[in-house]
């Protein structure tokens, strides 16, 4: 596993936060270190994952898709978890940690709404107050998830400014935390943010990769490649964590290319900078102003990326590709038609790249992280005539 030195992955990461939050960051780091070593805490997480989340999720051999694309495609079915995406793995872990720290109020950001729904569910279960910040555009295009969060007892704050998407939601969540540092835990949904978040979220998500590695041994000792979409990059880090030490397994991350000039492909088109507390690749202009992004997938529509991905890119251990809106939508429809599975539009970016790599290299055995289900996307995509 990538070593962290003072919260760094190589040169990336760190802790660039206003002084008001430093005490919270130091306390969180200590609490997470302590919880990691506590067998009782680990057992509580494991029980919650089994009985509330529904783990382990299947590793599904998509046979018709494999035949159509010319390889062997295995889908890690995170779409089958409770609340419908991998986000719940991290949400239950951090919610248990917050409760252990005596925090009664949780704030979270959400893009596609999956992290917001997962956090709302985890908080409802533990009796914690839950406030979710969501870009106003995302509230419109992921309407079903806004309703779900409210039903689960969360307060949803639509955020204006910028592209009215994930970046603005994170800004507002951090500002809330600055105003309420004592009572509140910020339950960040991806491997982004200041140390220890990138490390902690990866550890709560590594169950994806650990399970997949074990499950794949039924087929062969190892897959040739594992593939996941990357917005902030939590489902990808979770999957990669199970395979990173096995140099024979290729790691592929897939960024959202959007359409036209607009993109959210940070690792492919950005340069290093600091956003939301960490040094990582960043879509920014010459003055260091953060650029607005666009992708059909709200969950990938972010100008930053987790610092460990920046490290894996520069070290060459993982490779990062770009898939645009149209190619993702085509894969979305193909999985529906051939396998009877409706994927999230985010996960469809990873599927589209699997198709591309199999077209080049026939017969490859790949695991694709089906990070979430697509029910949330249907109203928006149908309204735009995209599916």
């Amino acid at each position, binding site marked *: 596993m990538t070593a962290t030195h*003072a919260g760094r992955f190589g040169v990336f990461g760190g802790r660039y936060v206003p002084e*008001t939050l430093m*005490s919270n960051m130091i306390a969180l780091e200590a609490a997470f270190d302590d919880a990691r070593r506590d067998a009782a805490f680990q057992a509580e997480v494991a029980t919650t994952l089994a009985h509330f989340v529904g783990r382990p999720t299947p590793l599904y051999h998509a046979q018709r898709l494999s035949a159509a694309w010319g390889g062997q495609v295995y889908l890690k079915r995170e779409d089958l978890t409770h609340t419908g995406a991998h986000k719940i793995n991290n949400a239950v872990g951090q919610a248990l940690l917050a409760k252990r720290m005596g925090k009664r109020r949780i704030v979270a950001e959400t893009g596609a709404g999956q992290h917001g729904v997962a956090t709302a569910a985890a908080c409802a279960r533990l009796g914690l107050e839950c406030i979710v910040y969501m870009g106003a555009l995302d509230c419109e295009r992921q309407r079903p998830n806004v309703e779900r969060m409210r039903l689960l007892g969360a307060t949803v704050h639509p955020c204006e400014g910028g592209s009215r998407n994930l*970046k603005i939601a994170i800004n507002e969540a951090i500002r809330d935390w600055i*105003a309420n540092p004592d009572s509140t835990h910020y339950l960040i949904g991806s491997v982004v943010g200041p140390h220890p978040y990138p490390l902690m979220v990866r550890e709560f998500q590594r169950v994806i990769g650990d399970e997949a590695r074990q499950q794949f041994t039924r087929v062969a000792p190892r897959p040739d490649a594992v593939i996941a979409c990357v917005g902030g990059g939590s489902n990808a880090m979770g999957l990669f964590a199970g395979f990173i030490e096995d140099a024979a397994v290729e790691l592929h991350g897939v960024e959202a290319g959007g359409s036209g000039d607009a993109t959210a492909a940070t690792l492919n088109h950005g340069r290093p900078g600091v956003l939301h507390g960490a040094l990582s690749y960043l879509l920014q202009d*010459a*003055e260091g102003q*953060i650029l607005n992004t666009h992708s059909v997938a709200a969950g990938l529509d972010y100008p930053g990326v987790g610092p460990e991905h920046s490290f894996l890119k520069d070290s060459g251990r993982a490779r990062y590709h770009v898939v645009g809106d149209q190619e993702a939508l085509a894969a979305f429809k193909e999985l529906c038609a051939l396998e009877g599975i409706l994927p999230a539009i985010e996960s469809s970016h990873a599927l589209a790249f699997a198709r591309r790599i199999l077209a080049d290299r026939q017969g490859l055995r790949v695991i694709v992280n089906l990070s979430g289900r697509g029910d949330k996307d249907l109203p928006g995509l149908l309204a735009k005539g995209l599916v």
Partner: protein
Amino acid sequence: MAAVTIEQAFEQAVAAKRRALVPFLMSGFPTRQGFSEALKEAATLADVIEVGVPFSDPLADGPVIQAAAAQALKQGTTLAQTLNDVAGLKAPPIVLMLSINQVLSGGAQNFASRIKAAGVAGAIVPDLPLEESGSLRSEFEAQGLTLLSMLAPTTAPQRMKTIAASAKGFLYLISSAGVTGTRETFPPETLAYVRRVKQLSRAPVCVGFGISKPEHVKQLADADGFIVGSALIKAQSQGRSILEVLQPLSQAL
């Protein structure tokens, strides 16, 4: 070049037996010309002037300064323009406030040389805590610039000692948890916190976040100086002169 250093500015205030006044203005707000005029007005009463270089995603700022930054950016405000507009001012000393990404974007060394050449005395980088500040601190020291430190009420006692002991120029005390913007009043604990920090710091201690009226200066009387930002920006956006806010404060010092 700035004729007066930050240290000299505070010495002059002490000699005159009053607390220092540190207005915050946003570069390029409400317009480039409006900023230049406000800068001249502020200079008549200020001991140090803090100039914000607008950033797209300011985490520690409330709605008033966020909106000012967004408007200034929309009008094309850049670091180069800001340096150009402050370069003519001989006194009081100017410190910039901006995000670490704006500093790193063109390289820390380059940033330090550019602001030095414009006669700027130093900078406040709110999202650069002590632990991450080593390399920028050395660049600044090499150029004779001051990197100002911040303290918050949430800062733990040991950390408070470390930061206060190494503070240069002045120590920026965040009055209370939360983003920048108006607070109606300050509880007694805020004054106790100011006193505690004053015992630890050799540098003058200035309070910011929510300072807008003479009552605040009276409530926090032990501070060496007061930073006022959102109240000025609000006046500017209502078409009023910043002196309407600064004069009563100045008289209370």
